[in-house]
C-alpha cells in the first residue's frame, strides 16, 4: 500500500499538481507514527499502514496557508474533519490536493500486547493476518482482533471529499460495533454511579492538553483555557473541578462540530474515554434534532447554529426517565 501511495504521490509531484505531501512517518517506535510534510526527495520516509492513525486534517490549517499546494493523504474518516474545517473557513481548499487513501481500520498496539506478545520488533500486515516479529520469534494474529476501538465503529469506507482516491482492491472495512453502546450503558446507570464513573475517569486527567491539541475541531487560534483574559484559563490540576470544567466545556465547544474521529481518546496518555463525552452530544443531537454527521455535508448548517420551532424542551432531560 505504501508503495502504491508513493507512486501516486511521486507522479503528482512530478507533474506539479503540488509541491509537497502531508503524510505519516515512523516515530521513535515503529507503531508510533507521526504526521510529517515530505518534499519529493524525502518520500522514502513516507509510510502508510495500520499504525497511520493520526488524523491529518488539522495540520492543513497551517499547511494550507503556506505558499504552493500540498497533497493531503486522508483516510475516509479524516475527510469528515477536513470538510468540517472547510465549512469553518479554516483550511484554504485551493492549496490542498486531497488524495483519499483506503483504510482497513487502525491497529491498537496495546491490544496486541494484551495478547501476551512481548518484545515486538516489527509488524507486517499480510491480508487478514499480522506477522509479528519479536525477540522470541515470529507470531501471527488475526488483524481483526487488535483493531482500535474507534475503528470498530467505523463511519464507512467512503471519502467525503477527495480530488483523487487510491483504490486498494481489498474489501472495505466495516463497522463491527454500535458506537453508542457505552453511552447507553452509562445513561442506564444511576446518577451516583455515573458520577463515580466520570470522577474516576476525569480525575486521571493530567491536563497535558493532548486531547485538545490533536482535536481537529479544537482549532481556535487561542483556546479560552489558555487565555488569561477569559478568567477560566488553565489552573493547577490539583482539583477535579477544573478537569470537569475543562472537559465539559471542551465537549460543548465541539458539540455539533465533532466528527467523532476519536483522536482525543486515542492520544490520551491516561486512557480516559473522552470520546464518550462527544458521543453523548452526538447521540442527543441525533435523538432530539435528527441524525447529523458533522463533516458529511458541507452545506449543512450545524445543529447548534440552527433550530426548529418545535424542538424538544430542555425538560426532556428529566422526562426521559432513567435512573
Amino acid at each position, binding site marked *: 500500500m505504501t508503495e502504491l501511495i508513493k507512486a501516486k504521490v511521486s507522479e503528482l509531484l512530478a507533474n506539479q499538481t503540488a509541491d509537497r505531501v502531508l503524510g505519516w512517518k515512523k516515530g521513535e517506535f515503529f507503531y508510533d507514527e507521526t504526521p510529517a510534510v515530505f518534499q519529493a526527495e524525502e518520500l522514502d520516509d513516507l509510510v502508510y499502514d495500520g499504525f497511520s492513525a493520526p488524523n491529518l486534517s488539522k495540520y492543513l490549517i497551517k499547511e494550507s*496557508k503556506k505558499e504552493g499546494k500540498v497533497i493531503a493523504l486522508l483516510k475516509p474518516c479524516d475527510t469528515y474533519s477536513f470538510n468540517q474545517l472547510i*465549512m*469553518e*473557513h*479554516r483550511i484554504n481548499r485551493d492549496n490542498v490536493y486531497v488524495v483519499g487513501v483506503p483504510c482497513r481500520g487502525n491497529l491498537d498496539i496495546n491490544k496486541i500486547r494484551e495478547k501476551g506478545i512481548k518484545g515486538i520488533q516489527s509488524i507486517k500486515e499480510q491480508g487478514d493476518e499480522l506477522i509479528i516479529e519479536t525477540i522470541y520469534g515470529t507470531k501471527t494474529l488475526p488483524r481483526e482482533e487488535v483493531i482500535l476501538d474507534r475503528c470498530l465503529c467505523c463511519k464507512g469506507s467512503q471519502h467525503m471529499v477527495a480530488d483523487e482516491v487510491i483504490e486498494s482492491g481489498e474489501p472495505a472495512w466495516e463497522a463491527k460495533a454500535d458506537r453508542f453502546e457505552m453511552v447507553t450503558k452509562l445513561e442506564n446507570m444511576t446518577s451516583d454511579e455515573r458520577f463515580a464513573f466520570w470522577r474516576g475517569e476525569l480525575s486521571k486527567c493530567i491536563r497535558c492538553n493532548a486531547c485538545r491539541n490533536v482535536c481537529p475541531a479544537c*482549532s*481556535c*487560534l*487561542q*483556546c*479560552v483555557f489558555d*487565555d488569561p*483574559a*477569559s*478568567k477560566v484559563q488553565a489552573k493547577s490540576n490539583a482539583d477535579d473541578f477544573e478537569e470537569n470544567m475543562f472537559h465539559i466545556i471542551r465537549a460543548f*465547544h*465541539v458539540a455539533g*462540530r465533532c466528527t467523532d474521529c476519536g483522536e482525543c481518546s486515542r492520544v490520551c496518555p491516561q486512557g480516559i474515554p473522552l470520546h464518550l463525552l462527544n458521543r453523548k452530544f452526538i447521540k442527543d443531537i441525533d435523538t432530539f434534532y435528527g441524525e447529523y454527521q458533522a463533516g458529511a455535508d458541507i452545506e449543512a*448548517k*450545524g445543529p*447548534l*447554529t*440552527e433550530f426548529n420551532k418545535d424542538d424538544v424542551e430542555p425538560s426532556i432531560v428529566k422526562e426521559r426517565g432513567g435512573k
Partner: protein
Amino acid sequence: MQKIGVFICHCGTNIAATVDVEAVTEAIKNEPGVVYAANYQYMCSENGQALIKNAIAEYGLTGVVVCSCSPRMHEATFRKAAQEAGLNPYMVEIANIREHCSWIHKDKVEATEKAIILARAAIAKVHLNAPLISGQSDVTKRALVIGGGIAGIQTALDIAEAGFEVDIVEKSPTIGGKMAQLDKTFPTLDCAACILTPKMVDAKSNDKITLYTYSEVESVKGFVGNFEVSIRKKARYVNTDLCTGCGECTTKCPSRKAKSEFNMGLMNRGAIYIPFAQAIPNVATIDPQYCIHMKTGKCGLCEKVCSAHAIDFKQQDEIVEQKYGAIVMATGFNLINLDQFDEFGYSKYPDVVTSLEFERLMNAAGPTEGTLLRPSNHEHPHTLVFVQCVGSRDTSGCGKPYCSKICCMYTAKHAMLVRDKYPDTEVYVFYIDVRTPGKNFDEFYRRAVEQYGVHYIKGMVGKVTDKDGKLIVQGSDLLENKQLKIEADMVVLAAAVEPDPSARSVASMLTASIDTNDFMTEAHAKLRPVESPTAGIFLSGMAQGPKDIPETVSQASACAAKVIGLLAKDHLVNNPCVAQSNELRCNGCSNCEKVCPYGAISYIEKEVNDHGVREVRRIAQVNEAVCQGCGACTVTCPSGAMDLKGFSTNQIMAEVDAICR
C-alpha cells in the same frame, strides 16, 4: 481600580420597610473599590439625583451602583443623571432590591442579606464596566408600505402629507384591497366605493407617493433607517404608460375562463382585464395563465383592438431597487378556506356563500348588478340564514381560536340591508354572542333587531342540506332550548378572517415577529401597538389583528405618525450594548454569522498583528447599527472572541461569583 459610589434607595417604605438600608450601606462600604456609600429616601427624586451627581464630582467616581427599583423602571433616569455629572452613562448599574427583594420577602434579616448580595453583584459588574459610546446611523427619508388596501393607502397618504416620499407595493393589479369589494360600511351605511375611491385617486395623484401595483417585495436587507429593498414588478404584458384604460381589449378578449378575483369568483373575466371600473391604476393586465396568445401563439385580438398599441407580449418582470428608512406592514387579510367545514355545505351548494361573496351579490358593480339573486337559479331569495362565527373562536383545530371582530357588525349590516331592500324576506341570524363595542355599534345592531325585524337566534347551525332546491338549515336555539329546521333560499357564512398568506414570508424577510396565527406581533401590546419589535418596521391594519374600517384607519394614521417620527430624524443613535469581535482571537469560523438573527455579522480579510506576527486573517465584523445586542453569537463562538458590550462574559461571571461568594 474603579472608584465606585453606591446609592441605596429607601423608596419611601417600599424598600426600607423590609430591607435595613443602613445595614446594607454599612456592609458594602468596605467592598473593594467602593469609595462612597449613602442611602436616601427617594433616589429618583431631584434631591436623590443631586446626591449622585455631587458624589461623582466630589469623589471622582468612575462607577455608580444604585440599589433601588428595577432597572426597567429607572435605569435610564440614573444613567442620565450620571451623564449630566460628566460620567459615561454606561458606568451605572442597578441592583434591583425592590421588585426582586423587598416586595417579595417578609423576613427583614433575610431580605437585607439578599439586598447586600445583589448590591455586591452590581458592584462586581461595575468593576468591569467600560464607558460605551453610541454610534450613529443615517436615515433614508423614504417609507415603504407593503399592501395597498385602506390601511396601506391611509398610512401612505399621512406620511406623504408630512412631506416624505412613500412607495406602496401591492401584489394585485390595483390598490383598494378588500374595502373596494364591500358594498356598504357599518355603522353609517356609506357606500364603500364612495369613500374609498377618492382616497385611491389621492394616492395616485400625490406626487410624494409612488405606486408599485402588481408587484411584490423580493428581498429586504439592512436595518432601521437603512433598508435596501428589491421590488419585483410583475410583467402585465401591457405598457402602462400607453394604456388609457379604455377597456376595449377586456370586452373583446375571447378567453372567459378566468374567475374574477374582484367578484369573488361569482363571475368570469377576460384573460386581459381591469379588476373593476375604478381600479387604480386604470390599466389592463394580461393573465398569462388564460391568455390564448401566450399559450398557443394564436389570437392576439387585444393587440389588434388596442389603438394605443399598449399590448406587449414580450414584457418581462422588472426589479426595482430602492432604499427606505421605514417599512410598514399593511398586508391585510383573507377569509379562511371553508373546505374543513363540510357541515355548512359551502363547497356543495352554490347558494351557500361567504359574507364577502354576499357583499358582491348586493353590490351595484357586482355580478347581479346589485339585485340580490340566488347564485344557483338567479331567483329572488325569500328566506336567508346568516351564520356567525364560522371558524372564529374555534378551538377544535379546524378554525381560528380568536374572534374575527368584524362579523357581528357586518352580519347586522347585511341583515338590515336585505330587509330594507326586500321587505318580503325573512332573515335569521345564528350567533354565539353578539359583540358590538364601538361608537354607535350597539345602536346599529339594535336597529337590525327592533326596527328591521331580523330574527336573532342564539345557537349554532349544525348542518345545511339540500332538499328540492331549498337549503335545510338545522340548528339549535339555546335560549328556547329547541332544535330548529329552517327552509332557506340562501345561507351566508361569516367566515373567520386570517392574515394574508404573504404575511409570513414578508415578515421573515423583515425579521419581524409574527404570532402563532400569523398576525404581526407588536413591540408592546399596549404601549407600542403599531410598531414591530424589529426597529423600523411598523404595523397597519389587519396584518396586526382583526379590526374594522374605522379602527384600521385610526391605526393606519397612528402608524404613519410613528413613521414620520422616525423619518423626521437625521440620525439614529444606536444601542451601544452590541457585540464586538476580538480580532486576535477570532478564528473566522462563521458560526456567529449563522446564529445572528439580524445579519449583523460579516467577515473581512484583514491583516492583523498578533504579538508581532503579521498575517491576513478572516475575521468577524459586527455592524453596530444592525446588532440589537442579544448575545447569541457570544455563546456560539468557541474561542470567546465574540463578546457583548454591557453584558460581557467577564461581567456576568463576576456577578455569578459575587452571588455565590
